[in-house]
């Protein structure tokens, strides 16, 4: 059952198989959590956002039209949820330095992980929003060009161009 595609799992879930939903969540929860950590500024917010995404998935996958991959659906929901959170809790609530903020995201004992998240944020925050998204999905999450294009609702050529620009920009910024 683990080798079933996401779409097959969604089909089974729609037939009433909750185990299929569990498998789908387990398959994507780490990735969704990591992205939430990058987009949000607080551990609790990142976890709440993930829970909100999967709750919406539980309610919303009944109406899934199979025009895209379920991960695309989850990712777009995550972006919406994170935007709502960022708007709701305006930045002044978390006027802290990045290091301090991210140390809240992961276990404080795990300083290496904290450092990695800071480094990732340092890299992507220098880029415009679309390039930042491409770098995150293609390089850090390891999605294929096609998957990145579907997730970002654009053509594979656009992803390649954005990736190219991002790499050039990073090279310039790194000197």
């Amino acid at each position: 059952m683990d080798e079933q595609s996401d779409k097959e799992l969604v089909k089974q879930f729609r037939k009433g198989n909750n185990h299929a939903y569990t498998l789908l969540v387990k398959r994507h929860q780490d990735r969704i959590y990591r992205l939430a950590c990058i987009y949000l500024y607080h551990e609790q917010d990142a976890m709440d956002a993930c829970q909100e995404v999967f709750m919406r998935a539980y309610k919303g996958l009944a109406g899934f039209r199979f025009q895209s991959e379920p991960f695309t659906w989850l990712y777009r929901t995550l972006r919406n949820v994170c935007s709502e959170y960022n708007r709701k809790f305006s930045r002044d609530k978390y006027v802290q330095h990045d290091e301090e903020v991210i140390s809240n995201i992961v276990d404080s004992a795990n300083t290496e992980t904290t450092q990695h998240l800071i480094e990732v944020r340092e890299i992507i925050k220098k880029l415009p929003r679309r390039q930042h998204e491409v770098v995150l999905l293609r390089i850090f999450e390891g999605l294929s060009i096609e998957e990145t294009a579907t997730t970002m609702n654009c053509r594979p050529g656009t992803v390649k161009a954005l990736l190219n620009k991002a790499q050039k920009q990073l090279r310039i910024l790194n000197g």
Partner: protein
Amino acid sequence: MNTKKQQLDNLVAQYRSINSPVDFSARAMPQKLTYAWPQWLSIPRLTLATSTLAVFLTIGLFIQLDKAPYEPALYVDLSQVTGVNPSWIEITVTQAPSLSDIELLPDMGQVNTDLSDPASYQPGNNHETNSHRQLNT
């Protein structure tokens, strides 16, 4: 350059090693749904049905309002009552009239009941009034 690439690869590997501290599959799934609306009763469908009904009701109301003032409560054949040629009678009804509201046009003068003289049917040429004037002169 290779060192930088290696650094990035390391960072990517370390980033991917971050896992969710919680299993969301158990947390996100409600244990029991107390009530679920039937699927056909979706909000867009309800909205469409309500707005269609509202449009039809509004049209019906306008039709009723449009009809109402012209709906005579009582039909009176004035040409028979007064003996006047029906083409002479012109009454504008804006609301349900009472008998006192009905006025003949000023140029009709008094009603001529003598229908023998066709010349007297001309508007403003009241036979009786003219005869009376002749007598006075």
